């Protein structure tokens, strides 16, 4: 890069930023939305322009090659062809972008789903009043088999025979991202109040979870919670 113009360095930097956020970042995190990538590219461009216009020399180094390329004087061979391609492609890209912004979407609106909304205050910090004994865990597993396994599955993985029609699907307790991150009191809230008990931030409120307080006494629910942790090989989350 030594000896190359500031304009060329800026172009390489923009391409590098795009490649990193579009293709490298998804290797370690969720894919970034294009709107965010465009924002990063915009900020990079602003940085290049600010840096490149700090002095008259740097301004010439940044803009000179661009103006000479656009003017076309003295260009030949590949450079001449590249200039023609840029001049043709830019208006077509602008037209294409305008079209894609206006064309009706064929996909439903994205639904931001809050996986673990904050529980109501009355369900925060409750401790399981049922002793964690082998007998109680065994009874909990029996209750789980009778009431919960049709959806959450006999292996606690959300793959029950009654799960297929529901969106979102029943929770997979074996996944370390579910009950392992939650306290027992949180599960008590979700089991007792069900899908219709979700609070305002718990959108999109499509859970099929029954409101088990209608059918099960509290101590059965606590035993089911113990069984869910024991059966899935997880431990309840704690404040420590």
């Amino acid at each position: 890069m030594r000896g190359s113009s500031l304009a060329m360095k800026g172009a390489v930097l923009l391409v590098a930023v795009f490649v990193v956020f579009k293709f490298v970042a998804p290797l370690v995190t969720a894919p970034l939305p294009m709107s965010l990538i465009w924002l990063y590219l915009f900020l990079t461009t602003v940085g290049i322009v600010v840096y490149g216009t700090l002095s008259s020399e740097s301004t010439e180094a940044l803009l000179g090659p661009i103006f000479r390329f656009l003017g076309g004087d003295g260009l030949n061979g590949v450079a001449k062809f590249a200039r023609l391609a840029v001049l043709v492609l830019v208006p077509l890209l602008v037209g294409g972008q305008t079209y894609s912004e206006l064309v009706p979407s064929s996909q439903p609106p994205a639904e931001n789903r809050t996986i673990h909304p904050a529980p109501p205050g009355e369900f925060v910090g409750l401790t399981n009043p049922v002793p964690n004994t082998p007998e109680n865990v065994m009874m909990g597993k029996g209750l789980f088999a009778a009431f919960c396994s049709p959806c959450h599955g006999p292996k606690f993985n959300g793959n029950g025979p009654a799960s297929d029609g529901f969106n979102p699907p029943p929770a997979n307790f074996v996944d370390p991202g579910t009950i392992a991150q939650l306290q027992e009191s949180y599960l008590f809230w979700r089991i007792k109040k069900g899908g219709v008990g979700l609070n305002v931030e718990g959108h999109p409120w499509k859970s099929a979870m029954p409101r088990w307080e209608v059918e099960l006494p509290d101590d059965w629910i606590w035993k089911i919670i113990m069984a869910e942790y024991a059966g899935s090989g997880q431990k309840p989350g704690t404040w420590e």
Partner: protein
Amino acid sequence: MVGMPSRHARLAVLAAAVAVLWGTPVLAQETVVVRVKLIQGEVPTDPTAPIWNTIPATEFPMSPQVHWPKRILQVTVKSIKVRGVHNTKQIAFLLEYADPTQDPADAAALEFMVGDKKAHFAHGQPMAQVEGGPVNIWYWRNDAPGAADMNAQGFGTLKKQAQQDVQAKGVWKDEKTKVRFKERKLIPRKDAKGESAKDPKTGDPLFDEETKVVEQDATGVWRVVFTRALTTTDPNDAQFQLGTFPNIAFAVWDGKKLESGDLKESGSQKAVTSWWYFNAEPPTNYSIYFYGLIAVVVAAGLEYVIIRKVRKGQPA
């Protein structure tokens, strides 16, 4: 050293792989949206109308209704195929599902949200902390003519509307079809000695789970068409705008009479889905192409101005 397989052998392996993949049943929906196609002329009210064969179907797996007692854990209908058409005034949905017997109490229903408020798919059951809205239910039953246009906002609130706007017609045919569903098996795990493996902590027997999508032959198919105007004057109705994505849910009852005299499925004992979407295709909007062309012209004009100034030595 093993030599490279011949070209014919490689082609045979490739063909076999393609055949296997091609023939593997897949249950996941191609899309979560029922594409309601725009057609010319009247929307079909007959479930056997030839036009339905030209409309792509979206298949949704179904579950037993578990949200509310009384519930059952086995239902007859494992999945439902849905097609939709509209002509900018009327909309029609065709439900197609396998049911081996035609019974008077066989029934099907569509459900929509009314107004802008979210509604729970289980009959618009009130939510504890979210102000939900009612649902509009279109109900068809084999032994009743037409359809019932109903509202609900919670269990036990189902009520027929004063203004009935929905029509429906069902046809059962004794024809062969394919039913796809997930088959799950728990297989006892064996230890090195071939005996039942047990959890070292609890002593519980260990199982492995095998889940696969299977496709089975079935005989007997219901096709039910629901039709209604896209918009009505009834404030209790769901209203549909072209190009939007309203929620839609489905329910089906196998009304077979058991030896006990009870119906196999009735009331809250039914096959259901939770909310999915449909999209009524809007007419082609040619102004989009015009605006795209304007953008091309403006961008090209801007290029011309910049290049002209650059060549004159007056950077823009």
